């Protein structure tokens, strides 16, 4: 890894206050991540594990009034820049007995600060593609108009005619056939896979340093998923794009990622080189191992045709238990560490070079 990562997330916490439950939903609860230049980081996790909220927080996309974000997100392009600077000043928390009882947030100031922090970064240096391309694009404008808008905003092609040519170039780059015809299509006239391509073109049109792909293949058919995965792979090789890939589909993550971070209950439980995590999962976090083992693959089937499921339910991020968050579903917990698992939350520590695991099994 290069000495200065392109993006460094430090102790990121994103809480949403639920008035009805008088409690915080701790969607992201102390995430540390580094993304090096040119690498692809895959973030996997089940729904509600905080993988999307993590990346949305770094791009100031958390607008919900009760959302509170703390931590540091340093984007190091030419000079380091904290994307979360000054946000603390916009919120006031009322505490009673150590618990946060209510949140007051100056939304205007917050929004202004977010825009100041992210000016020129969001959309320009860091672009994002979303799970549902049809919802993410403007239904009232042609895809061509939307892409050339991104070109004019973020690149040196300011002239409308030049921007149009540039937009056509990107439509071609994402392999949309007959781009000149498609340029004038509205999003509803495109199929799901085609629309996802158009959104990738729109993200690329800004010539970003980094692309965040949030569930780019979810909801698409298998054959179309494969095309989108190939497209992302090509972006890596052709443009050397730094890519953050968020998905619950371990297959997609496995194919594209250089490094993988596994999230559970708002935390990173394990991170490391993709091959190491996937192939030596028994030497990593019990959750990663159980997750891989529960995938419906022939090699995972035990006698009687059963799949080794992870019993129990996905973590409730309101009543986060003391100690390790995965404790109640863990199959490798043993009496030697049981007391510690219940009492104290393990830290994310390096167990082998490049691999960090948050588990007492590895901390004598």
């Amino acid at each position, binding site marked *: 890894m290069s000495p200065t990562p392109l993006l460094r997330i430090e102790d990121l916490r994103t809480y949403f206050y639920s008035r009805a439950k008088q409690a915080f939903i701790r969607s992201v609860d102390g995430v540390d991540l580094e993304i090096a230049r040119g690498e692809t980081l895959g973030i996997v996790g*089940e*729904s509600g594990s905080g993988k999307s909220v993590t990346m949305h927080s770094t791009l100031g996309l958390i607008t919900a009034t009760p959302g509170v974000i703390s931590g540091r997100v340093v984007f190091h392009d030419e000079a380091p820049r904290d994307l979360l600077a000054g946000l603390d000043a916009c919120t006031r928390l009322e505490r009673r007995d150590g618990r946060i009882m209510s949140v007051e947030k100056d939304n205007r100031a917050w929004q202004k600060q977010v825009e100041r922090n992210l000016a020129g970064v969001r959309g320009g240096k860091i672009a994002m593609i979303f799970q549902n391309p049809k919802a993410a694009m403007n239904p009232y404008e042609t895809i061509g108009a939307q892409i050339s808008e991104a070109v004019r905003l973020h690149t040196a092609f300011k002239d409308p005619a030049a921007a149009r040519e540039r937009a056509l170039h990107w439509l071609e780059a994402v*392999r*949309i*056939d007959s781009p000149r015809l498609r340029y004038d299509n509205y999003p*509803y*006239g495109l*199929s799901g*896979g*085609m629309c996802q391509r158009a959104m990738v073109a729109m993200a690329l049109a800004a010539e970003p340093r980094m692309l965040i792909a949030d569930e780019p*293949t979810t909801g698409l*058919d*298998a*054959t*179309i*998923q*494969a*095309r989108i*995965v*190939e497209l992302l792979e090509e972006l890596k090789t052709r443009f050397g794009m730094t890519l953050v890939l968020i998905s*619950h*589909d*371990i*297959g*997609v993550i*496995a*194919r594209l990622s250089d490094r993988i971070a596994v999230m559970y209950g708002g935390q990173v439980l394990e991170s490391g080189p993709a091959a190491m995590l996937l192939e030596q999962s028994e030497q990593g976090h019990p959750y990663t191992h*159980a*997750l891989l083992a*529960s*995938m*419906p*693959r*022939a090699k995972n*089937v035990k006698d009687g*045709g*059963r*799949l*080794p*499921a*992870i*019993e129990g*339910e*996905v973590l409730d991020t309101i009543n986060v238990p003391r100690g390790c968050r995965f404790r109640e*579903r863990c199959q490798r917990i043993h009496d030697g560490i049981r007391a510690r698992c219940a009492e104290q939350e393990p830290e994310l520590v390096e167990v082998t070079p490049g691999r960090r695991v948050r588990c007492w099994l590895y901390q004598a």
Partner: protein
Amino acid sequence: MASPILEVKGLSKHFAQRRGLLGLLSGNAGGTIPAVDGVSFALAEHETLGLVGESGCGKTTTGKAILKLMPVTAGEIRYRGQDITSLSPGEFRPLRREIQMIFQDLDAALNPKMRIESILREAIGLCEPELDADGLRRRTYELLELVNLKKNKLANFPSELSGGEKRRIGIARVLAVRPKLIVADEPTSALDVSIQAQVINLLRDLQGQFGLSYLFISHDLPLVELVSHRVAVMYLGQIVELGSAPRIAHAPHHPYTSVLWSSLAEKRSREAFPGAAPAWGVFDFERPSGGCRFAPRCPVYAARGKPAECTDPHNTPRLREIEPGHAVACHFPL
């Protein structure tokens, strides 16, 4: 095959075409969209038949037609030898109990204003109206135990349950009427991997316990391979290949099946067809008016220099057996 529990012969369901964009896209001047077009298969007792295909290929429509949830255009559905297509709703009613469906969208399938207890009791009451309050309670607990749910969930509303729990309630409600044949439409599509494995194990246990037969509809290929004895692959309303699950997954004969399986993200589709990398762009649905429907996307068609028989409207490939228990609809099987 020993007496099949379900036999489907030449099932077709054509939807009247809406005007506007849909009509323009399908390029079908005939005024109907053949969502299901001449589908035939048989399902044996205690068997799981997987039905796979891309969205819009007619999997769910086939399932709904079997339950008589929509009138069919043509064809015959036989349940234990009895033709059920022509039965009136009243005549079908006793059979409805034996043929049940696990719906894809449980937020829509469970009444949000009923507590779990009432949802289950309603179903039990339909099946066993003679039960008294005590019997009802016992049967409710029995069902909960079958699907591994705690009793304290009975007072909850569906919205208070997690995805996996809702799925279990959906299964418990289906089991309440003691069915024989279950059409499971994407039973795990909205679930996380770890919960999906729990539900799959549950379905498998129940099959062993009650001798159920499943028509398992899904677009998740590895999952279908794992749970099914046999697999039918659908493409644009037709079955293009039907065979045992391992053969379909590892030795497919239809180019579409091969493309489908090799498109799994872990593998690379280029490795499957080293000579003919799938053409970029040709992935939108095209519905040719005649001949093989897969031809426009078919790597074999392209590699063989577009042979005329593939697009000959009078020579649509039919499902034919090419080895025992394995049928394929293709002029040039792999």
